[in-house]
């Protein structure tokens, strides 16, 4: 589904990603781990199309489509979803109106008619239950006044509503207590199908106890330096990132 080859990207002329390769197939969950500054969040932002990140080399294909040629909105419409590490508060834009606009623009891109009002509200209700997110969304502004946990749950709610092919979770576990973490993970697990895929970016192994990955990759200095199964995450947890730095450096 996702094929990244020799990806180089920089921010303000500083090279961050230096030849990253990654293959993700439908139905798979990949974890990307790595020390601070290794390029984890850059990967998520480059895939979603954030302006400040410049791709200098390499290619990213989603089911054969060149993602790097597309605007952020078209990437989303093609099925890319980035769950933000720091979701933005937007006062004055209602949660419900935002979800509806997003859903309908994605539907329009696929040649589908706008969603019926009742059908939409039922879907929101159903998905809210899925992520155990009972906040009253109707009259509240997007993420405004939400706690850290509520913001992350709202990200997963959006994920559930928009049903992307490829979801990238950027340190979704950061700032979450263990209960919130479990709820978010359960939501993600229920959304897993054989047709979609997840890339879970995390610093800690903790999240991977709840979202069990098929593959674990270690990102260091802008490249994937080691790949393995979920046992690699445990080994990392035990030995620490210094172990990676030493072995790669050597």
């Amino acid at each position, binding site marked *: 589904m996702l094929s990244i080859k020799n990806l180089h990207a920089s921010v303000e002329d500083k090279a961050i990603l230096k030849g990253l390769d990654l293959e993700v197939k439908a139905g798979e969950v990949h974890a990307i781990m790595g020390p601070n500054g290794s390029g984890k969040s850059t990967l998520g932002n480059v895939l979603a*199309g*954030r302006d400040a990140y410049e791709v200098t080399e390499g290619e990213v294909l989603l089911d054969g489509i060149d993602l790097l040629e597309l605007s952020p*909105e078209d990437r989303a*419409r093609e099925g890319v979803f980035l769950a933000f590490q720091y979701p*933005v508060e*937007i006062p004055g*834009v209602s949660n419900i109106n935002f979800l509806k606009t997003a859903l309908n623009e994605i539907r329009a891109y696929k040649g589908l008619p706008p969603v019926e009002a009742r059908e939409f509200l039922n879907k929101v209700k159903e998905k809210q239950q899925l992520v155990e997110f009972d906040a009253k969304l109707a009259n509240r502004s997007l993420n405004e006044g939400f706690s850290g946990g509520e913001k992350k749950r709202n990200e997963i709610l959006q994920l559930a509503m928009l049903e992307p092919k490829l979801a990238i979770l950027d340190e979704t576990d950061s700032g979450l207590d263990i209960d919130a973490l479990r709820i978010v993970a359960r939501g993600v697990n229920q959304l897993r199908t054989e047709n979609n895929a997840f890339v879970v970016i995390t610093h800690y192994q903790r999240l991977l106890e709840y979202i069990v990955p098929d593959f674990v990759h270690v990102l260091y200095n802008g490249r994937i330096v080691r790949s393995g199964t979920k046992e690699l995450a445990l080994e990392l947890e035990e030995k620490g990132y210094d172990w990676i730095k030493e072995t790669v450096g050597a």
Partner: protein
Amino acid sequence: MLDEVATGTMITQTSDSLYTQLVKTAGERLSSGTSGSLGEIRKQALERFKATGFPTVKNEDWKYTNVQPLVNRAYALEAEELSGGAAWEKARIPELDAHRVVLVNGQYSSELSSVEAIAGLQVMPIEQAFERLCFAKYFTAFADKTDNPFVALNTASFTSGLFIEVGKNTQLQKPIHVIHVAASASPLFSQPRNLYVMGAFAEAEIIESFVTDDAAERSLSSHVTEIMVRENAKLQHYYLQVAGEQSSYINHTEVHQEKHSLYNNYNCSFPGAAFVRNNINVRLGDSEVESHLYGIALTADNQLVDNHTIVDHMKPHCESYEWYKNITQDTSTAVFNGKIFVRLDAQKTNAFQQNNNMLIGEKSAVYTKPQLEIFADDVKCSHGCTIGQFDNEALFYLRSRGISEAQARVLLIHAFAFDVTSRFANDTVRQYVEHLVEEGLQ
């Protein structure tokens, strides 16, 4: 080559003096025709105007709004009618059921107007209202106390305009939609004069739209509107500025409120008219008065929109609430000057003012100045002002969910304008304005 340019400029200057033209015409008219107290008022006004002339940028009230290039051009004082006259339809507000009053180049058009006969409601050209009791009582009673030279000039030389009287205890079911059409085949300087009187316990809604006929030449309109809101009366008053680029406006609105009255002004400007100056002065002339001033200016191209407001608390226990939002695109300029007076007598005043600005065009400009002059000692007054730009983080967040950049901008602008648009008393007008906001964004 240089010589030609110089000669050209010379000719323009000599043939051009609007000032001379106006003073001469008004002087002749006043010495020949009008007699009695009205004539006297107008003669005095002409003298006041002659003493000051048109303001320059040296005058603090006109610092960012230079009228000199406008008044130094050539204009006719009489309109050259365009055929057709369907331009008023540009002001149509979808689903609005209203009495319609159309003024073409400041002249009341009975053909295009459609006002149902209602007991207690008087709508007529102002030139037919001179004999009315409340005209004598309120005409020039307040506006001419200000030092705005355009008011003095208008008083001295207006020839047309609109008179509305909503009688005591009359509550209008439908709004009155006043449509000002600029439609002259040659450059025109016009000075409509309006007087609206709300009798005791009267309630009404007046919606004013400004539009331009596509075939119109450039024009400068200097409107003066005096509004009397008597005891316990309520007036909802909308200004919807949707005129074309060739039209420029200098509008002065003077409101005087009596005890227990309510006056709400919603002042909206959209891309189009090259030059718009609004003076909106509200005098809270007795106790227990409430006034709300809301404004939204969405500007584009090289437009200038300047809103100068005065909220004058003269008596105790009154409340005023003012919120203006400016969104500037391209190389446009928005000016907001909000003055609040709290006079010595006006104890227990509650006055609020807020101005938020969003600069979208990198070369656009905003000048904003809150001014509070407080002479009473037991009052609650607050004011605030912000200047910002598009939040790129918010834009990216919305786009990353599949929302187009254009739609994301619309969402963010609606969110920015929401504090103002959500206060509109009339839902139909609110929807219309939200639509104009969407249309006005590039």
